[in-house]
């Protein structure tokens, strides 16, 4: 029983034709997942933190804690 002639040309092209769109799609999905799963929540967390941030209050808290050299707590 002799063998039929198989397809011998363009095998890589055929494989790429199938796999490359999948690869691109998966890469885009991975990038989108990271953007919306990690970076956007992170940015939102920072935005939320600083929305009600009172710099002077924080500064005075640090000052009273005595961590600065140029300005001492109000007691000294």
């Amino acid at each position, binding site marked *: 029983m002799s063998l039929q*002639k198989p397809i*011998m*040309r363009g*095998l890589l*092209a055929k494989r790429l034709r199938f796999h490359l769109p999948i690869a691109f799609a998966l890469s885009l999905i991975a990038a989108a997942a990271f953007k919306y799963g990690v970076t956007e929540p992170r940015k939102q967390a920072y935005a939320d933190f600083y929305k009600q941030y009172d710099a002077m209050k924080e500064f005075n808290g640090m000052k009273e804690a005595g961590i600065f050299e140029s300005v001492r707590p109000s007691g000294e």
Partner: protein
Amino acid sequence: MFSAVVRLSASGVRSLARTRPCYTAPLASRCYSHGKAETDEEFDARWITYFNKPDIDAWELKKGMNTLIGYDLVPEPKILDSALRACRRLNDLASAIRILEAVKDKSGPHKGIYPYLIQELNPTLKELGISTPEELGMDHV
């Protein structure tokens, strides 16, 4: 090969109709906007002629095989026949057996190609006294 990657990745399924003329001859041929693309038969004939050169030298044999292996295809039996005869003229049994190993490797996951090639090349292998890697036990580690 790179041209195949660029063509296929950029357009995917949408441009199947547009790229089809190139797709049927996707080997070393480029998608010229000028001139005709080489047909498969012309490609095969060119390579058969290359290896049929009576006074081909060892360098040309190696160069030819390396170039041929670089294409996105498994060489036709008639090209391999021509190359094996060139090996015979050069008294290079090692290269002859290596050619068989190479085309098996080129088939990749397509297990049907190599048995077909051996089937087609059997008369030549017998005539030239070339053993296959399998017969020599060289097909496994």
